[in-house]
Structure formats: structure tokens, C-alpha cells
């Protein structure tokens, strides 16, 4: 087996460890930090079920962003929804036999790849063309979009231009999951694609990608507006 296979196997184990431990650590910190006061942004739901509904609209429809800026919402929502479809399509590399619902959704993953490209380009464009967003953008904000665009582009190019041996790729990942290594094809595009995914996984817990777990812990969104009815002593306050 080639050195490349060992290198990538090691990198994926490392990245998975960092991702899982890092995000878990953050979630534990968020959960353990007290929320001593009731601070939901009102009008807010007055029942727990209502909060579930608010969280659903926030995380699935991006309700607040929709209120804020239709352009950012269109680009952002398309990107995230397409990402979900693309991730589902990629599940076929990790399951054997492939789950039925994954098989059904997989064909849409190709369109979703293009949709991601569209959404990310729009989001990046805002960092140049809207002076307010330009002002607040740090190098890491641009790099994050470049990273995602590069992952999407290499993925699409493997689909349309330079194919790789996806059967071998699947064997590699199934092998990784069973601690039984098989050779990884050494096509440059594939190696770039996978290398960038490793980078994305590794930086997740130390970057703004923490918005993903963070939104669920946001007291302005996850608190029930019932301070007068039930009181709030700040011990637990989800």
C-alpha cells in the first residue's frame, strides 16, 4: 500500500478525533455555563413546544435571516440546504448496502453541488460588494469560503472532468471505519478534495463553524417566555 493511503488514513483519523472531541468539549462548555436570566428575544413562545417550533424555523428556514436580508438569506439558505443534500449523497461512500433513502436522494446531490457553488459565490460576492460586509470580513472569513468553494469545485470536477475510481474510494472509507485499510486511488483531484475536507474537519471546533452547535444554545432563541408564570432561578434554563 502506498504512503498516500497511510497518510490520508492517519489524517482522517486525526481530523475525526479533533472534530468529535473539539465540538463535544464546546457543547459541554455551553451546556455547563449558567444562563442566570430570562433573555429570550420577544415576542417569544410561552411553551416548550413553541420553542421547539421557533428553533425549527430558525435552523431549517433561517427565519431571522429572512427578516434581515433577503439576499443573504437566499445565498445562505441555498448553500446550507444544498450542503445537506450533498452530504446525504456522500453517505453512499460510508454505507454498505447503501440506505434506500440515500439512493433515492443521491441523484439530486449533483444539482446540489452546483447550488452550493451558486450560494457560496453569492456569499463571497457580498464580502466584496457590500461595503458593510467588506468592513467586517477578516482573512479567515474569506478563507473559509475559499476552502468550501475549493471542496465543491474539486468534487464537481471529479464528477464531470477527471473521474476517479469511486469503488476504490468507497472501499477505502469502509476500510477506515472497520480499521482495515485498503488502497486509496492517488488521483490528484481526489487527494486535493479529501485533503481540504480534512482541513475543514480539523478547524471546525476552533472556527466560526461553531455557529452550528451554538445556535441551539442561544438563550435569546431557546428560552421559554414564562418568567412570570414559573419563575426563573437560572439553574437550568434551556
Amino acid at each position, binding site marked *: 500500500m502506498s504512503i498516500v493511503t497511510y497518510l490520508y488514513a492517519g489524517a482522517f483519523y486525526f481530523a475525526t478525533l479533533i472534530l468529535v472531541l473539539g465540538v463535544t468539549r464546546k457543547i459541554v462548555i455551553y451546556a455547563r455555563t449558567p444562563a442566570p436570566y430570562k433573555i429570550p428575544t420577544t415576542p417569544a413562545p410561552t411553551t416548550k413546544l413553541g420553542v421547539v417550533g421557533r428553533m425549527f424555523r430558525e435552523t431549517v428556514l433561517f427565519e431571522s435571516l429572512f427578516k434581515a436580508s433577503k439576499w443573504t438569506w437566499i445565498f445562505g439558505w441555498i448553500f446550507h440546504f444544498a450542503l445537506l443534500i450533498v452530504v446525504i449523497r456522500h453517505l453512499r461512500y460510508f454505507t454498505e448496502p447503501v440506505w434506500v433513502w440515500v439512493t433515492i436522494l443521491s441523484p439530486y446531490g449533483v444539482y446540489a453541488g452546483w447550488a452550493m457553488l451558486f450560494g457560496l459565490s453569492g456569499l463571497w460576492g457580498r464580502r466584496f460588494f457590500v461595503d458593510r460586509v467588506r468592513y467586517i470580513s477578516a482573512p479567515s472569513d474569506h478563507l473559509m469560503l475559499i476552502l468550501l468553494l475549493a471542496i465543491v469545485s474539486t468534487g464537481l470536477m471529479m464528477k464531470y472532468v477527471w473521474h476517479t475510481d469511486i469503488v476504490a474510494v468507497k472501499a477505502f472509507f469502509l476500510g477506515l471505519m472497520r480499521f482495515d485499510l485498503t488502497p486509496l486511488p492517488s488521483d490528484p483531484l481526489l487527494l486535493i478534495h479529501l485533503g481540504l475536507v480534512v482541513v475543514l474537519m480539523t478547524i471546525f471546533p*476552533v472556527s466560526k463553524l461553531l455557529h452550528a452547535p451554538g445556535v441551539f444554545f442561544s438563550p435569546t432563541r431557546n428560552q421559554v417566555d414564562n418568567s412570570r408564570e414559573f419563575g426563573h432561578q437560572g439553574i437550568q434554563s434551556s
Partner: protein
Amino acid sequence: MKAEFTIPVVTNIPTIPSVVDGTMAHSRPFVAKSDHQSALGFPEELVEDWHDRALEKMKELLGKYRSLQVFMDSCVKCGACTDKCHYFLGTSDPKNMPVARQDLMRKVYRRYFTFAGKYFPWLVGAIDLTREVLEDWYSYYHQCSECRRCSVYCPYGIDTAEITMAGREILASVGIGQKYSNEIIGKVFKIGNNLGLPEPAMADTLLDLEEEIKEDTDIDVRLPLDDADAEVLLVTPSADFFAEPHVDGLIGYAKVFHQAGIPWTLSSHASEAANFGLFIGNDESMQKVAMRIREAALELGVKRIIVGECGHAWRVAYSYWNTLIGPFDFLDPNYPAPQHICEATYDLIEAGALKFDKEQNDDKVVTFHDSCNVSRGSRMGNVPGGQFIIPRALIKASCNHFIDMREDSIREGTYCCGGGGGLLTDDLTELRVKGALPRVQALHEVIEQYQVTHMAAICAICKSQFTKVLPFYSLGMDMIISVHQLVGDALVMGREQ
């Protein structure tokens, strides 16, 4: 009105300004003097080891408030909030964009508390905590009125108010407090209210008001003080005892209680509903100020606590009191504890206990300014959004002519008056005038279109702020009135024949 700065132009179509760096870098309120600081337990002046103590305080706050910890990590710089702050819209200063205001702290957080900022500061925009940074904090954390408008639009619910409060707490804890807020909190500790109005003066004022009502209506409406037979303790902002147009609101409350036959009282111990401890993000002060109200309620043996027209006071009462001074198991469980004066009046109207002669307000075309803390930090009634419905219902019950302003400028999207959050001080006049622009813009539209003559509000800060800034925009200072002035003027007094 003459000013030493350029008054923003009210245009027909509201526009988002282009970014102009540093236009408000000079704006900073007076720093608290040593006795203002020591009264609140803060160091009297900038401490020598301010750098370490500021970071230590930040660490403490990150462990104390989930909001701060989550908000520091979650922002993706999407820009959704960038055009939502009235201070940005009025000043064009990019550091008044909510995300940039947060970033003043987030850059330091990243530098000292995150892996990326420790090892790759240039990449993530992390910076060292320097004196310049501290100065920037002082300037721009006093250009936020903690109105939470940005939190409505943030996809992660990031509330800049939480970060501003933390910023001010850190500043005060290294010796750089704000004079206006800290001096006022000191007055509450010492005398019992923001105005520093001692009990005899308060009693005199209330007697004068009783005489005034007697002259106007020929009816003996009482404004009792420390009455042990009362059922209701009314706590209201002390501006209601003194300032125009606030005092007409107080007269309105008195008329409502009189007409409904509810025995009520004010308290000389708890003669202030406002709680500036919220503004400076200091728990101890906030609790100490609030505790006077619990003490007064217990001592007077009242069954209900009702809060007068005051925005942040209602937020503190509604959302924070239970944590700070609860539980309220000694009060009558048939009423919400605490209750807003608008809720109390609304319930009486619903029960048919009050009659109105709306024609008394026929000289007015009224609009309503939703106050930020009521709209986005509290509720009235038992349905979400009751805080928008109930005050409007009171206005409609007492006026024939009511019209709402543009939809995105009211209810949950309401613009702050520009003077909230501890900024209602003359050393910040420029900021206050510029920050009022979005509200004035929306008001201007309904004046043009519907000949609106008055804007009603339920917040002492809003009332004082508009009285001061409307003349800068060539509008009358007496346009702003209390909701309970409208109620009181239209209320049919006396017993039915």
C-alpha cells in the same frame, strides 16, 4: 435648534448609509469620578494591572453567562445585523454596526481564549488588549442603547446588548465606569431614586398634583405615599414625579386607580422603577436596586405590585425580578407578579370598569412608539406580542384618531429612541440626536401622510429623549406624550348617576 454637529437630513425614503470610518470615534461620555465608582464597589480610577484584571473579568463573565460565551463563538460575519442599528443608520460609523461593536470584544476574546487567536491572530482578526482597545470599548460600548434590535435579525440570536453590558462591566471593574449611570445608581442606593428626590420633596410633589387634579376635575383623586392600607404598590420611574410629559402619565395612573376604586400607594423607600444596574451589566447593583421594591412591598403588606411606564424597568421587572428578588409568593396569585400599569388598565377596560369620552382627545392624531425593552425584552398579557396589543388598545380606547408608523419601525422591529441603555445624558447629545434619526424618519412619514400630531410612549427614557431631540429635527418637544395621559384625559371621572 443649534448644534455643534451636523444634524442628519430626514429624507423621504430611508437609506442605508455608506460606511464612513471613525465619524463617532470622538464620542465618549464623562468618566465616573472616584466617589461614583466606590459607591458601587468599583476601583476609583484605572488600576495599574488593568490588562490582567480586564482579562480576568472577561474570563469570569464568560463562565457566568452562557449568552456571552455562545455569542463570542457563534458569529459568522454574515452581515445581517449591519444595517439594523439606529446608531449606525444615524452616524455611518462602521463600529456602530452590531457585529463590529461585538468584534471589539470578540477580537480580544479570540486572542486570549481561543486556539486560532492565540496562534494565528492575523488570520482571524485577533488583537492584543491595549489602552487603545480599552478606549475604543469605552467609546463604542457607550454608543449602544442595548435595545436588542440586532438580536431580532441575527440568525444565531446574538444579542449585542449582552456584549455591551459585559464590556461596560469589564471597564467599570478596572476603574473606567460611566459617570451618568454610576452616579444615578449611587443616588438610588443613598436616597432611593434616580433623581435623588428625598421623601419630603416627594410628598410635597404628590400633594401639588392632587391639587392640580382637583382644580381640573373637581374630584379628590389621591396620590398616596407609604399607605399601609393599600392593596397595590405602584413603582414608577421617578421622572414621573417631576418631568413633562411624564407627570401627566402619573396623573393618568392615579385617575385609573381612583375610578376603579383600587387602594394603591407609592413608596418612599422604593420610589424608583428604573434600574440602571441592567445598563452597566452589574448584577450586584441591579439586585440591590430591585431589592428595595421587594422590601417596600413586604413592609407595606401590599397584595400586588404594578410597574409604571418605563421600558427597561419593565424588562427588569418582567424578566429579571424573579431571579433577583423572587419569588413573589406573598402577593395575590390572581394577578401576574409583577403587573404592568397598561395591563392593569387594560383589564379594567375589559371588565367594563372604566368609561371614556374619546372626544377629549379629538385635537390629536396619535401614533405609538414601541419602546425597545418592552417590545423585545418582555411581554404584557398572556399571548406573545401582547406588549404590542395592549398599549395600542389603551390608546384606541381613549382616542378617535390613531395611526401606526411604518411596519419595520414598530413592534419587534421598533427603533430605539436613541437615548436608552444609560445614554440619556447631555454629554452624549450628538449621539442621541443622530441615533433618533430612524424613528424621526418614520414619524415624519406619518406626519406628512396622516397629519399625526402626537407620539405616545410608555417609557420615561423615550419621553425625555424625544422631548430633547425632536426640536433638533424641527418638531415640537410636546409631540411626545404618555399613554396614560391619553387615558387620563379621556377617562370619565366620578360615579355614574
